[in-house]
């Protein structure tokens, strides 16, 4: 790992039988993998499953003891392809990624894997990035499972159920020779809870055994005629085997209730939400006792027809709680009931909204509607009357609360890239800018308003290809170093070379993948004992044939950043113009450096602490600096000068002295209000020699001037009131 240490978490992985694990669920999954005798793990980082990758990356000694191989895969496709190890060999493998984006990338390998089937258990831990806090398009992983016949576990979101699902996942996979997905929503990944651990298990059949005794079986390879027989095998053998395992092991759960004429079928992952909403209506308690019978579908694909028929038979109404659209589960249940000639009315979308996250509020409203339609309104606690002033209060808040989308952190090295791009466009005209996935996508929001599209990780340059006609104004494509190594090198850069693009590609290089938490990649600057790093982007780009490459090693220098962009946009050189903008991610850099600075000061080493500031008597309160920065630490301050109407600019204490505000004030010729103050700790001999001389000279001149003129003594000038 590049920037953070997960030593504490790694220790948790050593817990043995009958000890108690306490922590986040995604860490529990990591531990459970080892308890299940996993042989290899791969994946691609991204919220909400980054933690699994980060912890394993730091767990080399434990993994070595257990004979477990861990890879930071180059992409989700690479991770999925890794699972082919379980095709022929009786070894358990697990991979993880953020979905649905990662599943999109992985789906080629997944489809091949699912077609041939597996011998050893193959588990895909899916971080379902859906609903509040999500950073991607709102889709479901469910249809990927359906189309490739991969089983989809959706456990109840408590640590024990999730850990059980890992164990069952491997066993189900082996029992049905099918890869299994374990889906965890964002909050479930981060839920804090506990479970009783077991000993880690060393696999009996090792990867070394596999390498030394290679196996092959053409029947498992996706090639005619085997590919045709796979389809039948999936339906005729693997599916029944899976359903049998699910039934025999009681993977789905029924919670009985006294209102037996109705029932709820819910995705397992929504169980806590369902119980909480029922609790709000007086239909359940905090211990999970419910008055409405509940079928918790912990395996959402495949469904178990017998269980569903038994649950629904004879009921007046059943509600399906299925988040997202289309309502695959509801449709499937309808088909099951129809085939079994059961006429229980099924409700789902209609009582509940078709789109959007099923938050507690949404579920409460939906259940209220369901209960009312089922004629059981009286069973619910009546709604408390809202306060009389509520309507007015809400109306005022609707316009009175500022929107607060995420943006660049204080000191982010990407901010100056877009300030420079703004300035370059001011001079050379607006350009089509194809954006990419990564923090740099925040450029598309105010104050920069740069970026027209985002087509997928590493696809920034590829998404500008449609405009590659060599005429008119050159377009700009932005791509991060993470996306570059993920696929952008071939899909974007090599593609532009091959198709003789004349446009500009800006590679944002922050020394590691920053948006996902600071994981190492090929071009990381850090030394990593377990990975090969320090492969510069520049060489890769030149290697695929780019001739015009320029690198900026200090993006905060807005002037040179702007000039190189202008150069790229105007040069007569043929072929794609690649600008590499390199500066380290400030969030991670601060995490590393803050303690070091503190230590250096304590150790008596000469240390300079920098901070930027604004002279409020020079600032006129026009906020031009903020319109080209958006830095959280550059903010408004009510002016205490009665001659000023508008708030002035101010740099708050969160400033990390990246220098962007001063650079922008210079590059855009904004104003002379900015200054940098360097506080020197443990001064050197030269410092202590010079300082009194300077002070004497300056104080003398100041006194001289002061005695010859009148100076305002008010706080607006002197700043005494601060």
């Amino acid at each position, binding site marked *: 790992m590049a920037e953070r240490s997960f030593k504490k978490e790694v220790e948790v992985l050593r817990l043995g039988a009958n000890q108690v694990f306490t922590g986040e669920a995604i860490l529990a999954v990591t531990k459970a993998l080892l308890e299940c005798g996993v042989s290899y793990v791969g994946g691609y980082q991204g919220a909400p499953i980054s933690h699994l990758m980060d912890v394993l990356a730091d767990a080399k000694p434990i993994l070595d003891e257990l004979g477990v191989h861990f890879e930071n895969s180059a992409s989700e496709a690479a991770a999925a392809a890794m699972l082919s190890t379980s095709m022929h060999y009786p070894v358990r493998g697990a991979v993880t990624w953020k979905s649905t984006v990662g599943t999109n990338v992985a789906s080629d390998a997944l489809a091949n894997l699912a077609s041939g089937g597996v011998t050893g258990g193959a588990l895909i831990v899916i971080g379902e990035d859906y609903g509040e806090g999500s950073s991607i398009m709102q889709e479901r992983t469910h249809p990927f499972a359906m189309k490739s016949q991969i089983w989809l576990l959706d456990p109840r979101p408590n640590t024990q159920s999730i850990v059980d699902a890992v164990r069952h996942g491997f066993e189900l996979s082996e029992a049905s020779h099918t890869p299994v997905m374990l889906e965890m929503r964002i909050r479930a990944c981060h839920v804090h809870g506990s479970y009783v651990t077991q000993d880690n298990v060393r696999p009996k059949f090792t990867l070394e055994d596999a390498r030394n005794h290679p196996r092959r079986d053409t029947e498992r390879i996706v090639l005619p005629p085997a590919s045709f027989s796979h389809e039948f095998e999936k339906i005729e053998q693997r599916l029944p085997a899976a359903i049998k395992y699910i039934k025999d092991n009681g993977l789905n759960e029924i919670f009985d209730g006294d209102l037996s004429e109705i029932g709820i079928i819910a995705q397992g992952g929504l169980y806590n939400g369902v119980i909480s909403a029922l609790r709000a209506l007086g239909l359940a308690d905090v211990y999970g006792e419910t008055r409405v019978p509940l079928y918790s579908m912990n395996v959402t694909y495949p469904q178990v027809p017998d269980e569903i028929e038994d649950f629904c038979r004879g009921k007046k109404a059943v509600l399906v709680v299925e988040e997202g659209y289309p309502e695959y589960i509801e449709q499937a249940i309808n088909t099951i009931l129809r085939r079994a000639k059961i006429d229980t009315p099924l409700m789902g979308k209609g009582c509940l909204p078709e789109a959007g996250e099923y938050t507690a509020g949404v579920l409460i409203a939906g259940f209220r509607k369901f209960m009312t339609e089922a004629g059981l309104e009286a069973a619910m606690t009546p709604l408390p009357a809202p*306060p009389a002033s509520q309507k007015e209060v809400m109306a005022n808040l609707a316009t009175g609360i500022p929107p607060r989308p995420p943006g660049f952190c204080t000191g982010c090295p990407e901010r100056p890239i877009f300030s420079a791009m703004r300035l370059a466009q001011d001079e050379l005209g607006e350009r089509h800018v194809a954006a990419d996935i990564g923090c740099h996508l925040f450029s598309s929001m105010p104050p920069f308003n740069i970026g027209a599209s985002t087509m997928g990780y590493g696809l920034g340059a590829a998404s500008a290809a449609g405009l590659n006609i060599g005429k008119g104004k050159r377009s700009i494509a932005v791509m991060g170093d993470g996306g570059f190594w993920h696929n952008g090198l071939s899909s974007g850069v090599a593609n532009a070379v091959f198709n003789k693009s004349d446009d500009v590609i800006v590679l944002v290089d922050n020394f590691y993948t920053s948006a996902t938490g600071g994981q190492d990649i090929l071009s990381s600057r850090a030394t990593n004992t377990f990975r090969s790093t320090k492969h510069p982007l520049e060489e890769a780009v030149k290697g695929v044939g780019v001739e015009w490459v320029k690198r900026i090693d200090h993006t905060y220098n807005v002037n040179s950043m702007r000039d190189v962009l202008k150069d790229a946009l105007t040069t007569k050189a043929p072929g794609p113009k690649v600008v590499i903008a390199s500066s380290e991610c400030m969030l991670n850099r601060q995490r590393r450096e803050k303690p070091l600075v503190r230590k250096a000061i304590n150790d008596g080493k000469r240390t300079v602490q920098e*901070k930027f500031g604004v002279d409020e008597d020079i600032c006129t309160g026009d906020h031009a600096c903020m319109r080209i920065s958006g830095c959280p630490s550059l903010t408004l301050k009510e002016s205490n000068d009665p001659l000023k109407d*508008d708030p002035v600019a101010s740099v708050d204490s969160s400033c990390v002295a990246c220098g962007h505000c001063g650079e922008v004030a210079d590059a855009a010729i904004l104003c002379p209000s900015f200054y940098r103050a360097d506080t020197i700790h443990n001064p050197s001999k030269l410092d202590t020699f010079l300082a009194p001389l300077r002070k004497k000279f300056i104080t003398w001149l100041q006194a001289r001037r002061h005695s010859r003129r009148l100076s305002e003594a008010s706080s607006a000038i002197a*700043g005494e009131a601060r």
Partner: protein
Amino acid sequence: MSASLSNDQPIAIAIMALGGQGGGVMQSWLVTLAEQQGWIAQSTSVPGVAQRTGATVYYVEMIGKAAKRPVLSLMPIPGMVDVVVAAEWMEAGRAIQRGFVTPDRTCLIASTHRQFSVAEKTVPGDGSMDPQVVRVAADASAKEVFAADMAALAEENGSVISASMFGAIAASGALPFPREAFEEAIRSQGVGVNASLKAFAAGYDAVSPAAAKPLEMTASSAAVYTSERRMSGGTAEQQAAFAALQKRIERDLPPVAHDMAQTGLARVVDFQDTAYGEEYLARLQRIHTLDQQNGGEARNFTATQEAAKYIAAAMTYRDVIRVADLKIRASRFDRIRKDVKASDEQIVAMTEFLHPRVEEIAEMLPRKMARRIENSRFLSGLIDKLFAGGKRVRTDSLRGFAMLYMLSGLRRMRMRSMRHYRESNHIDAWMRMTVDILPQDYDLATEVIRCRRLIKGYSDTHARGMSKYDKVMQGVMKLRGRPDAAEWTERLRRLALKDVDGKELDGALKTIASFESSPAR
């Protein structure tokens, strides 16, 4: 079956935070606290991109141990949240908006400080939103409100806002645990314990019933202006001349305008000298005389009051000399040392980011010289090469300070400079217009005075302000004679300050242009 349900309820806590504020730290303290007290706690969050400065919610439920394991919620249930912790004032409003704050059960604990959003910051005028809206909403929606500036308390104690907020939660009594238990939770986490405990105590005391005082809502905690009405330094003659000017204000101007006029006078004298102060008072007197003649007394001498403010602001334009003058003052050095919390013996180096253009350099010179430079491509090119462009000046060094000192010394020849000539002409034109309008339309004249607010910033920003001012003035010409002229001018000014490009202003001007073809309403 389960006809009898348990009445046990967990305590639900929603933490409204901004990415980077350390909401996760508070969350883990809460979980530790509950677990150390033998309770069961469950927490969830949605980090990811929200970590990057966006608004986000952390959620904790806790319940005493029972025979059965509880099924806790992973997200706040509207109407069932017991404690809402808002680590920024507007985020308290967001919690209310999302239905998390209800009068029957919710204890709202909020920090009153503002962390301005990009939308608020990028407005050329004052884009900050009204904190009072949230105050009213909080009083109407919460069972109890505990509020104080938790960010300031944290900073004073060298810690983070989570610590002071955690103290406020302890003091609120919303959780059934003693203060010591909270402190123990902080201790057991092991990071920055002493600073956290100090901030915790400060947060605790700030909302304790003994300390709680009625909340004053201001947009920020800026200090109140203290006009001491005296000038420091200078010679005895200069002081005497200034005192005489001060007396003139008390003698000639109505009491309601004294404060602003004294402030204006001090600023103008600080900018140049007492002679310039006299000029200021002469201009002000001209407006005031007219004000008196046109029923100003009944209007509280609004025109005089506004003129006192804006004439001073206009006369103290920001040329290179003024900037240099402000940069080298001893009071500024002290202010910066205070800002970076430097001790008396510590060395603080200062670097200024300056970027004078040829225009500003030429304007500093006497009119004839300036005009020659402005008209000669060769001369402006030379000056550009020699003096203009981005500069980093170390004001704590001999060279840098001496340079700015010399520049500020050009004050003596400022009255002959091109910049002064242009500024004076502009002020005169503005005053002529005011004087011209005042007898016919008192309110419009006052609005014209206020339009001076549009001119601010440096270089391009200044030019943009100027052009907006000009546009509004053209609008005023068209509006003259209409009964709603003042009202429209006020609107034009407001729109001009709303967005940079002045799109809304242009729209309004188009509407005004259409008046000419139709009679006044």
